[in-house]
């Protein structure tokens, strides 16, 4: 029985399997993606270590300076160091991404498994709900919500979470459906295991793999939403530095100095590239079936 079970569960333990790791390392895109992600995460987490200035300290005499040895990426209108602010901006982006993606993954996973495993009527109802949520275009929803409730970082995160849940839920549902009727689940059921137990112990480990990959590929979407809303002045509020607010400040004075929009844009691109490469390589290595769908 034990041996049989092991054969079917092919998710988490596989991640550590050496042949998969080798496969991953052979993929230059994957390695590049991983490196970029590592670089961004480290630079954000240890921002105070790498920063050359305080992100909020103004030096008005030295405003709108170009790149120099002292200010690697120049300074903004208030003489704040752009390089330092970009580093700290990474913290906001990753914070939104980490919280947004993990909460929507957990909720999506739970709802998706319930939809896949539960009765048909529940499945249909949840599916309809997912489709309805997906029919709200994120940015329009966000604009309307900001109008009602005022701009804030937590509002941005809430919107990110609500709109990304259906993606995870649908994927989890499909995976659950595909293993719902396998023999070992049926065996568990006949032994009288509760639904909670079946879902948590037997189904979850099997469906979470693809979801994690989807999560990696979802990070760029979330980071872009945050930056976009902050760019419009509807997300992160001053003086907090976010790539979006840096871009907004730079856009206003684009004729005076191009450095700020360049500096705010590059980390955004590196982040999206890094997570996309990483996610896609992981997918190719661990779950080639997904390739078709996405």
């Amino acid at each position, binding site marked *: 029985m034990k041996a049989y079970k092991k054969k079917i569960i092919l998710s988490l333990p596989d991640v550590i399997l050496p042949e998969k790791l080798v496969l991953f390392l052979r993929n230059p895109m994957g390695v590049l993606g991983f490196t970029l992600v590592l670089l961004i995460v480290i630079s954000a987490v240890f921002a105070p270590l790498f920063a050359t200035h305080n992100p909020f300290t103004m030096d008005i005499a030295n405003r709108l300076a170009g790149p120099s040895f002292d200010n690697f990426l120049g300074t903004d209108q208030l003489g704040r160091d752009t390089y330092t602010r970009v580093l700290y901006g990474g913290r906001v982006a990753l914070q939104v991404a980490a919280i947004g993606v993990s909460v929507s993954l957990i909720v999506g996973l739970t709802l998706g498994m319930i939809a896949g495993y539960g009765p048909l009527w529940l499945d249909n109802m949840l599916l309809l709900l997912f*489709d*309805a949520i997906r*029919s*709200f275009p994120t940015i*329009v929803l966000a604009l*309307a919500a900001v109008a*009602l409730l005022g701009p804030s970082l937590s509002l941005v995160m809430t919107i990110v979470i609500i709109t990304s849940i259906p993606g995870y839920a649908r994927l989890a549902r499909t995976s659950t459906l595909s293993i719902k009727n396998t023999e070992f689940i049926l065996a568990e059921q006949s032994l009288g295991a509760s639904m909670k137990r079946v879902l948590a112990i037997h189904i979850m480990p099997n469906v979470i793999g693809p979801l994690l990959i989807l999560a990696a590929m979802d990070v760029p979407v979330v980071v872009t939403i945050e930056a976009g809303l902050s760019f419009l002045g509807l997300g992160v509020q001053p003086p907090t530095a976010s790539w979006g607010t840096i*871009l907004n400040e730079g856009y206003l004075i684009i004729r005076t100095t191009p450095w700020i929009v360049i500096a705010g844009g590059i980390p955004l691109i590196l982040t999206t590239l890094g997570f*996309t490469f990483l996610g896609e390589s992981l997918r190719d290595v661990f779950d080639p079936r997904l*390739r078709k769908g996405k």
Partner: protein
Amino acid sequence: MWSYLLKRILLSVLIVFLAILALFITLHSIPGDPISIALGPRATPEIQAEYAARMHLDKPLYHQFVIFIGNVLKGDLGNDLFSNRSVLLILSEQLPYTIVLAVTAIGWSALIGIPLGCLSAVKPNSLLDKITGIVSVGTIAIPSFLVSIWAILIFSVGLKWLPVIGAGEPGDFGDQIYHLILPAFAVGLGWVGYLARMVRASMLEVMSENYIRSANAFGLKSRTIIFKYALKVAILPTITLIGVGFGALLSGTVFAEIIFSRPGIGKIIYNMVLARNFPVIQGAVLITIGMYVIVTLIADLAVSWLDPRVRDTL
């Protein structure tokens, strides 16, 4: 086919209904006076009284909802708080600009993305294929609003080739095209990558299928095969992708309209959010949801018409 059509349309109607319900619940669940929430902080007492009468706020909630739905179905989305013009009229003036921008963006990216995908698929793992692969991911990775900003920096500020604001003179077709170039470029760039990848993947799949292989065996020229058979099949995922990605496309147009001061639904929503002109925001949200549902519906129906196998999945 008919039962699929019926099912799909019913689903769309249900989704629209749910979306309206969600909007209604949101407006009524925020603490405070529902009139000021629905109309925003700047409505005059006159407008508030008129709204209260129109929405029958004295009636029970479910009754109000029925009236709300009825008004939406009649196309009565209320009036602009300040100019008192009909919201539907205001939005219908803006909508064409958004549609033109979205269609142009998709159009040019399809013209580039589909051939790129085809060529990559014909010679998989060639240099061209690899370059296409990298370009695809690269273009997908740059957020469209960043493309807009950098495009302004390069083409308007730096090179001074292209205009920055507006949609051009109506009636002056050339001028409109001229004003459309940069925004359409910004919105469509990411789609080049999406489409190239999607087309490549489905072409590879199709080309490995039997009838293509037998066509090959019959000695048909590979070019004929690609264009006559394979491409036809490659269209399917493209349509699906447009259906699925319409939300993203819309987000792209919102940013492009704001950054290029271009009229359109996105620009008007943004302006109205700033001015706290709530009736217009509500109307615009409903219109975009409606648009989304219609586009996905058309995409799904088109796919199922082209590829009968899909019908069984619903």
